[in-house]
């Protein structure tokens, strides 16, 4: 386990247009509701940061992402990272101006690694997160992908993580595409390998389905933070009555039925997760009173 600062627990919100979405292996996206409602709830439940990823990342959607960020920045006072389709220094500037504290880069950095250096020089290393989407190959090797695991790059993950660090990245958001949305647990081997090899913080992402999964990845690797999506989103959807009346664009069938339970994913709220970790010796920002005022 990492010695030092408190382990950060970070809800990850995948955004498509005006909606919060979630899928398995980032395919077959389900609409879950309004991102603002989830963000506010997580803030009140003690989230240490938030990550927003625009999973479609096409330019015509960009305005709704900006609106979501600027609306939430007015009432949520924790660091917010925004990523998905940011290509240029101007793209970065515009999400920072909308209220983001950090940006997450994937495709742009793979196509042009020097953008990491340029962005770190202009905005500071602590503002630049590199998102790495890893898929394990039959050979046991991990390769980096882009576009939510759809585009093969052939780049080996460990080397890429080290290079990103040397170019000035401040943090790595490490997602296992194999585990993403499955609830089978984090890819421990992947997280261990990367987090022990770089000295910048690593956020483990993809696969959380139970409290034990979260505890395990913190205890057995040197991850500085964990990102969680499905467990928290399904918990909120289940408890939030009004979400079944949600009529956003896209696939909202799941919300109407809501009965569909995933065997592998336990719906658990953020405060319960932190309580569990705290009582199992993991230093984290936990308060006994469930709700912040």
């Amino acid at each position: 386990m990492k010695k030092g600062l408190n382990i950060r627990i970070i809800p990850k919100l995948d955004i498509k247009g005006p909606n919060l979405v979630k899928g398995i292996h980032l395919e077959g996206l389900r609409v879950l509701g309004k991102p603002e409602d989830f963000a506010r709830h997580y803030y009140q439940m003690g989230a240490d940061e938030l990550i927003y990823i625009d999973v479609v990342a096409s330019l015509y959607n960009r305005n709704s992402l900006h609106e979501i960020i600027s609306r939430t920045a007015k009432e949520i006072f924790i660091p917010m990272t925004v990523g998905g389709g940011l290509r240029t220094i101007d793209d970065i500037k515009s999400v920072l101006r909308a209220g983001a504290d950090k940006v997450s880069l994937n495709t742009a950095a793979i196509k042009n690694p020097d953008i990491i250096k340029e962005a770190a020089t202009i905005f500071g290393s602590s503002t630049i997160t590199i998102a790495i989407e890893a898929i394990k190959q039959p050979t046991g090797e991990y390769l980096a992908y882009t576009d939510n695991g759809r585009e093969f790059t052939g780049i080996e993950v460990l080397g890429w993580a080290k290079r990103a660090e040397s170019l000035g990245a401040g943090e790595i958001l490490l997602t296992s595409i194999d585990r993403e949305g499955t609830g089978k647990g984090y890819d421990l081997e992947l997280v261990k390998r990367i987090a022990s090899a770089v000295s910048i913080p690593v956020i483990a992402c993809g696969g959380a389905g139970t409290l034990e999964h979260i505890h395990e990845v913190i205890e057995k690797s040197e991850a500085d933070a964990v990102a969680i999506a499905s467990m928290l989103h399904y918990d909120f959807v289940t408890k939030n009555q009004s979400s079944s009346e949600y009529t956003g664009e896209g696939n909202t069938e799941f919300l109407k039925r809501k009965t569909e339970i995933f065997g592998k994913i336990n719906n658990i709220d953020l405060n319960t997760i932190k309580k569990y970790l705290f009582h199992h010796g993991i230093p984290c920002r936990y308060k006994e009173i469930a709700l912040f005022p």
Partner: protein
Amino acid sequence: MKVAIVDYKLSNLFSVQHACEYVGMTAEITSSPEKVLNADGVILPGVGAFADAMKNLENFGLLEAIKTFIKSGKPFMGICLGLQLLFSESEEFGTHRGLDIIPGKVVKFPLKNHQAQITKIPQIGWNSINKPHSSPDIWDHTPLTEIKEGELMYFVHSYYVLPEHNKHILTLTTYDGTTYASGILRENVVAFQFHPEKSGPDGVSIYRHWAKNI
């Protein structure tokens, strides 16, 4: 209740403005010395390099405006680099003069801790703030009045301050074996190394209580 947030073109000031507005203050982001002088309260935020910040403040004519405002006795709050700029000098990339409101200097975290392990710099994340042992009541009647001993706040920094006088220390924080002043109070001037506007509801309460003096 008009607050001027000093803009010297180095940082993202929206979260500071949002926090002010959230607790009911009217806050304007400005580079104008006149607006600083006429404000009811002033916030000096900032991330980035010390020398660049001092140079920009000087170029905008803000150095004198800030010093004059502080002499007026009206509430002034420094955040992150804004705390460091209040000090006499900094050793970030050479030695540079600061605003010299708080006697003392700005130094870098040691590269290695007491066990000779490499210290991760910058410090990024949640760390606790504590009262100096000699003054258990020091947070009463300050913006920290609602904060509990050991509360966690959000930090991002590579340098920290060494005040000459212990009486100016409002909070202490320990990072990888180094204990340092993470909060400063001298009369109408309060300053924090952490970001209250990024520290959740507890951080917001610091803005709320600071606003009460305006």
